[in-house]
Every structure is written in structure tokens, then in C-alpha cells.
């Protein structure tokens, strides 16, 4: 048992005090049921990609794995902060769009986790996975899709020009060797963004990567994802612009190959420092 400088006293509620931390977190999640219901609704009505389910499943696994080591009593500051944030998330249902309110709810839950988490467990991967569990992809596609398409199209154009091909960007479309190829909404890389950050959070949660290290990694993950998407787009545009075009299977294979490469790079690179330090610690 860890010694605590301050203990939250749950006086007058001996039953509650006896509850394990996991049950507290479950109660906290239940208190946020309108957000959960909204997220489940979005998932079931087909208006968003079901990627969030994977983040949710992984989050569950991390929590189950960590359950025996959760604190017996919460950290008071974090506990109060999570209660305030839960109230804010609840009231925001009347004032904010459902997704924004759900982000507050995720923050509240993450603060609750911070209150109960073991001293050596990181917080950021948990918060990241909880955020990724939300039905985010369609909204990301709506708000970030077009800028990402423009950026991808422009970087791909430069890449093709460097390779000596005749290429020009026209809005979110490209003309390569006289052939028009569209960088349309599904080519924006939003899905790859989600998968990249999912891998980063998963790896960090698994090895217990320190929050500061993960924070340092996140922009690099972004750059890896962007580079991967530009590479994928450049390859596909160059092949599509040929007179014979590109078959559906080859299209899919290139997309999957680049996705796998980006995610593998994230998985290898994210916990690298921690691994090194662990090996170093093992040796000594």
C-alpha cells in the first residue's frame, strides 16, 4: 500500500469507502451515461467509422490489467477536479455540441483515472485512448478532411515534380501527365491519423511510457502519419495516372502496406526510449 500525504475521507459513507477503485471508475462512467448513450447511438446508426470500438476494447484491457494496482483511496485534488469536470460535462449537454460535451466527459473520466491510478502508471495514454474511443472520425473528416486533402495534394505534387513527372494541383485534385486524379474525402488520411495515434497510445499504455515522453512523441507521430499519407497518395496518383490505371486490389494493397508501415514505425519508435532505459535498468 502506498503512503498518502492526504487521504480523502469519505465520512458517513462506509459502504462507499469500501468500494474498490474499479467500481468507483465504473460509477463515474455511469454518471456520464448521456454521453455514453450518444456515443453508442452514433456508433450504431452507422454515421461514423467503428474504429472507436478498438480503442474502447484496449482501454478495457489496460484497466483490467491495472485493476489490482489501483489506489485504495483517490488523490483528493484529482478526485475533486474530476467531480467538477463531470458536472461541467453534464451541464455542457445543454450548451455545447454533443461531441464537445463528450470530450469534456472523457476529460472527467481521465481525471478520475488520474485520481485512482498507481503512482507509476502514466495518464496520457489512458486519456488518449478514451478520446479515440469517441465517434471522432466523421467529425475529423468534416473539419480536418479538406485541409488535409489540400496539404496532401500539394506535397504529393511537389514529390511528383521532383521525380520529373508533369504534375499540378488544382484545388484538391491533381493533374498528373494530363490525367485528372482526385484527392477526395476518403483520401484525406484522417483514418491514418486515428490509427497512428491509436498505436502510439496503445504502445505507451502497454509499456507504461512516461507522459512527458509520450508528449514528446506525439508531434513526430503526426509527421510520420502525414509523410505516410503523402507517400501513399503519391504512389497511387502516379500509378492511377498511367493509361492503364490501377486495379482495385493493388490500390487496396498499397494503402494497407503504407498504413502498416506507418503504424509499425509508431509502435517501434514510441516506446523506444523506455525500452532502452528498461534494458539499462535490467543490466544494473
Amino acid at each position: 500500500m502506498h503512503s498518502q500525504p492526504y487521504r480523502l475521507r469519505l465520512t458517513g459513507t462506509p459502504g462507499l469507502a469500501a468500494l474498490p477503485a474499479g467500481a468507483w471508475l465504473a460509477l463515474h462512467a455511469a454518471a456520464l451515461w448521456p454521453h455514453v448513450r450518444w456515443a453508442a447511438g452514433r456508433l450504431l446508426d452507422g454515421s461514423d467509422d467503428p474504429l472507436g470500438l478498438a480503442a474502447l476494447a484496449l482501454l478495457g484491457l489496460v484497466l483490467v490489467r491495472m485493476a489490482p494496482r489501483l489506489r485504495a483511496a483517490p488523490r483528493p485534488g484529482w478526485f475533486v477536479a474530476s467531480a467538477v469536470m463531470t458536472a461541467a460535462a453534464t451541464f455542457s449537454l445543454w450548451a455545447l455540441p454533443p461531441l464537445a460535451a463528450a470530450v469534456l466527459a472523457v476529460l472527467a473520466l481521465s481525471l478520475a483515472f488520474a485520481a485512482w491510478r498507481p503512482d507509476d502508471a502514466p495518464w496520457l495514454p489512458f486519456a488518449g485512448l478514451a478520446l479515440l474511443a469517441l465517434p471522432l472520425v466523421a467529425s475529423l473528416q468534416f473539419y480536418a478532411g479538406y485541409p488535409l486533402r489540400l496539404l496532401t495534394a500539394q506535397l504529393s505534387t511537389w514529390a511528383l515534380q521532383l521525380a520529373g513527372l508533369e504534375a499540378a494541383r488544382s484545388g484538391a485534385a491533381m493533374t498528373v501527365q494530363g490525367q485528372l486524379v482526385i484527392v477526395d474525402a476518403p483520401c484525406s488520411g484522417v483514418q491514418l491519423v486515428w490509427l497512428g495515434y491509436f498505436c502510439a497510445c496503445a504502445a505507451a499504455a502497454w509499456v507504461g511510457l512516461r507522459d512527458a515522453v509520450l508528449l514528446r512523441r506525439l508531434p513526430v507521430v503526426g509527421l510520420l502519419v502525414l509523410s505516410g499519407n503523402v507517400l501513399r497518395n503519391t504512389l497511387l496518383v502516379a500509378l492511377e495516372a498511367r493509361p492503364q490505371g490501377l486495379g482495385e486490389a493493388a490500390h487496396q494493397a498499397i494503402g494497407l502496406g503504407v498504413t502498416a508501415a506507418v503504424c509499425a514505425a509508431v509502435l517501434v519508435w514510441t516506446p523506444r526510449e523506455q525500452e532502452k532505459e528498461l534494458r539499462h535498468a535490467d543490466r544494473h
Partner: protein
Amino acid sequence: MFFPSLRPRAVIPLRPLSRPGRLWAVVLALACLASLLLVALPAQADDADARRAESPYFFVKSDDPSVDRLPLKATEVDARIAGPIADVTVTQRYRNEGQRPIEARYVFPGSTQAAVHAMTVRVGHRVIVADIREKQRARIEFEAAKREGKTAALLEQERPNVFSMNVANILPGDEVAVELRYTELLPPTEGRYQFVFPTVVGPRYRSPANKVATTEEQANGTAAPSGSFPAVPYLPAGEASDTRFDLRVAFASPLPVSGLRSSSHQIEVEGEGSNGARVALGGDAESSRHNGNRDFILDYRLAGDGIASGLTLFPGAPGEENFFLAMVEPPRAIATTQINPRDYVFVVDISGSMHGYPLDTAKTLLRHLIGGLRPSDTFNVLLFSGSNRMLNETSVPATQANVAQALRTIAQMGGSGSTEIVPALKRVAALPKSPDVSRSVIVVTDGYVTVESEVFQLIRRNLGQTNVFAFGIGSSVNRHLIEGIARAGQGEPFIVTRPEQAAAQAERLRRMIDAPVLTQVKARFEGLDTYDVEPERLPDVLGGRPVLVFGKWRGEPRGQLVVEGQAAHGAWQAMLPVATPDAQAVALRHLWARHRIQSLSDQEALQGGDTQREAITALGLRYSLLTQYTSFIAVDRVVRNPAGGSTPVDQPSPLPQGVSNLAIGAEVPSTPEPSAWIALGVVLVLLGAAAWHRGGSSAKRLWRKPRRLVR
């Protein structure tokens, strides 16, 4: 110290950035740079140039099994032809085989000369007779009925030959039959009659330059006819529609009917040579599935091979109007010996919708047209799709070498791109012309555009000194455009559905240009008090078509009609005595009104805007006719869907026979992400592999218990 330190000091002291801070700063700087570059680089096009909602598109069947996406089950046509007048009943049967109430929307074609005068809707055992209403009022009533949960049908005219039907609140299991009735005059050409029933609206190209009607214009109904065209879903080329198409024709002619044949469909004929012949669609089950993807064309003759000239009078009820129709056979064409030098400009559509069979037919036609020119003639060819180009700077003599070179160039053409017909015609109008040369412009197209009005206006205003002839190429041509071009350009329309018809049609044009049948035509009545005569000025007769005069009469039915003109051999005159009024000729009422509406519409197209709106609306309401400003509406009195809400379903049409998928637009490749589930699967496998790897490594303990490093 007296001198202050020379070491620079920050005004606001800032701590140096940490490593993650530096990384974030680099990322932010890169993002800002990329944004600046994107803004600085001019983008020639963006998503606004993507396919517009009004454009045709391929039908994608939803995977929602509770909604019936193909509610139109059958179209049945019943035509009764008496002499030159056809009375047609079209029944469209809708059935909802899904589990949710639907609103079926369907765009379908009609004959260019059809006077649609009645609509009836059957829901179960109830029969609802539709009323004619001003267009906006009908739409408001329809929307109200739809909201109230009543089954309602709205028939609107999109073009004189394109109609749209909306049937709201078709409940699961319902069968709704909508019955339309129209009357049409079938004027003969050189003694041959032709009944045409179009079955499909070809995909219309809508130019981005074409003015889009504003919401306000749409609301008050003042949108230019070309400013809007419903988005029509199409099945891919070659895919048969599930809608059954059936057609029957019954003749009730005063003269025996002969020479019954169809160049478009297999038919079964009964009683040929008698006054009561019958025609039905034939062929096996498989071929009949494709019956609804092209115009049904039926040719026939009446005994004597001449045009049944005559003056038919319809007596209205007491206090009502009386109508007449005169049909006068023109003299036979005689080729003139002295041919003036002529200049021909061929304007040829090589757009995507012409790809394949239609363009092949057009090439065959052009081989006959250009190959048949005299060496004294001059010619030029303008090819157009999205852009246009002239074969020669100026017209060249029709020498063997020039003709061969033109035919070689045309033979190399493949159909692709959009159909910018207006710029092409503007270029033709701007061509300089010697005053002593007679010019003919020959437009060859399928007419799949939405700019009919602009084309007619352009021809009337700029090609006044030129005869414009239009060849419609294909199995389901936009006859409204082809006939309108000919009318505006004082020419004649030609329809070529197959390459084997090309030679005969080219020869017909040559005869027509060489020898106009009748010019300076005038008609006057002696002894009969007539008024509201249509047309006000009779056009020249070029193609062996009869002289047609519509109108109203009052007083005693007596006297005669005198038609005069100049034929090849001199002055020509024909007299038709007034016959006894025929109470059965009730169709004349609608035919006169339809003709008057067409004259007003032509005038409106010339003037622009909606200058004839009131007059056309008044005629539509008075004679119960569907027009661009009046619609038919039928509303069931029973509220059948009290919960309201019905899923709109756009009924797809097959692509016209011979038209390729390029007519909808070439597919532009894109670079989509891999499908989410497969990508996620790949990532989960990677995660598993990573976890497995760590499980066997020195970091094995991480699997069991993450540990915090203590520095």
C-alpha cells in the same frame, strides 16, 4: 558598474524551450508554412466544380432493405390512332415492396407535341381525378398533402417532352396506378405517318456556365427553363430496368392502314390493311426487358399514299368555342435545274454521350452528307464537345481532296467530354458569309443538353439568314431540341436512329435544300368566320409535310379554305370546302391550345424571362393542359400515413440504347484510404506482434506489470 553590461537581456525573460517544446514549435512552424503555401498558390478549381446536383448520376441501390428503391413496376401505353390524331393513355404502376412509406419520384419523357390533358390516380379501390393548378400552387398543395400523410401525386412539366412525377405516401404493400392521357397530332411526311413514344430521358449535360436558378427564382417559378433540370439517376449501360414496359396501338381510321412497321421494336400486327389494325410489342421475354430503353417508333400509311387533306370542324357545346383543323397536302417537289452556289456548315457533337454507336451513326451520316456535296458547293465542319474546333479557317470547296480530308478527320473522332453547344453555335453565327451565297447549317447531335431555350434564342437572333437543319442521332434523342432548332432556323428536323437510315435521310436533306416544296404560303377562309388562327404566319414547306392550320370558328359552318403559295413550277393553290362539323373531334380543342402554348413559349424563349407566363398559365388552366406553368395534382382524401414522413426514392432509368456510361461522365480516379475494418485488422495484428515480441524480450515483465523507472 558605470557601463551597463553589453550582454543582451530579454525584455520579457523567457525560459529556453524544452525538447518537446522545440518539437512542437517545429511542427507548428511547418503547419504555418504549409498553410501559407496553400493560400499563396492559386487553386484553379475546388470542390465547387465537382458534379452538380442537377447532373445525371448512376443509380446506387441502397443496402437498406426496408426501402423499396425500385417502386415503378410497370409502364403500360395504350394508344388509339384515328387518322392523324393519337389519343394515348399511359399507366404507371407503383408498388411499395419495402417496409417504410415512400415518396416515389420519376422523370420520364413524352412526345414533343403531346397535349397532356388528364390524370387519374388509383389507390386500392379509390379513384382520384387530378386537377390542373398553377405550378407553385400545385406544389404547395402537394407538400401539404404529403405532410398530412395523404397519398398524393404531382405531375410537372420540366420540358415540353420531359415530365416529372412525384407520388407521396405510398405505404408498404400499396399499389398506386397513375394514368395520364394525352392527345397528339401526327402530321405525315410525304404520305408516311409516324407514331413515336419515347420511353427514356437521355442524360442531359448541364453546362457550368449555365445560369443556376436562385432559390428565390425557384420559389416563385421564374427560373429559366434551362436553369434547372432534375437530377436523374441512371442504370449503367446495358443494364435492363426492372420496370415492365408494355405498349398497344389500336387504329380506328377512316382509311385502311398499311405499311405497319417499327424500326425500333419487334411488333405483332393484326388486321393490317383494314381500318382497325392492332399493334402490340413482340419478342421473347429477354428482349422485352430492354424494350424501355429507346423510342418506340411505328410507321404506317393510309390508303392512297397521299396526305389526307381536309378541314375538320369541332362544334363546342352551346356557348362554348368551336375549333377547326385544316391539313393540306403540298405539291410534289420538283428539282430545279439552276442551283445557286451553296455553303454548308456541319456542326457535329462529339461529346461523351455520343461515344460509340451514336458517333458511328453520325459518321455514316456525315459521309453521305459531305460525300454528296457538289464541287461548286463550299463547306466547313465544326466539331464540338467541351470546346470546339473548325476543320478549316474558312469554308473550302467540296473537292474530292477536301471531302476526303474532312472525312478522315471525322473518322478519327471519339466521343468524350461535355456538350457545350451554345459556344459552338455562337462561333458558327460569327462566321463571315458572302451575301450571294446561301448557307445551310446542319447540326448533328443527340441533344442531351439542358440549354434548349438558349439554343433557340441564339438561332433566331443570329442565324436569320441561314437555314438550320438538325439531325438527332440516337435511340432516344432529345426531340424537343432537334425540332426546336429546325423551327427556329426555318429548317427541318431529322431523326436517325440507325446507321442504315443515314443515306436516306442525307438524300432527303439534299432534295429539300435543292427544291423547296412551297414558299410564301398563305391561308384565307371564304365564308367561314374564323379567329385565333394558328400559326399567324405559315412557314415554308420543305419536307413534303402538310400545311397545318388550327383555329376557332363561329357562326354557320360554311365556305372554304384557300391555301396559296409558290411552288417550283409557279403559283399553287388548294381549296378545301368546309365539311359538316364532327362532334367526335374533341381532340381539336386540346391540339389548338397546345399549338398556341408552343407559339407563346417560342416567343418567350426569344424575349427571355417569363414574359408569356400569364398567357400560358391561363391557357393551361382553361384547357386543362400541362404546361411549364401549370401542373396536375391529385390528393387522396384519406389520411393514410398519420405519422408522416416518407422516404424519397428516385426511380432510375436505363441509359438509352447505344449510349455509353461516358454520357454520365468519365469516372475520375481517386486515392481512397483502405477500408477501415481491414486497416484496423492490420494494426491489431501489428499490436499483437509487438506485444508478443516484448513478451519474449528482456522487457517481459512489462506484460505482467508496467513499472515506473526511477532515475
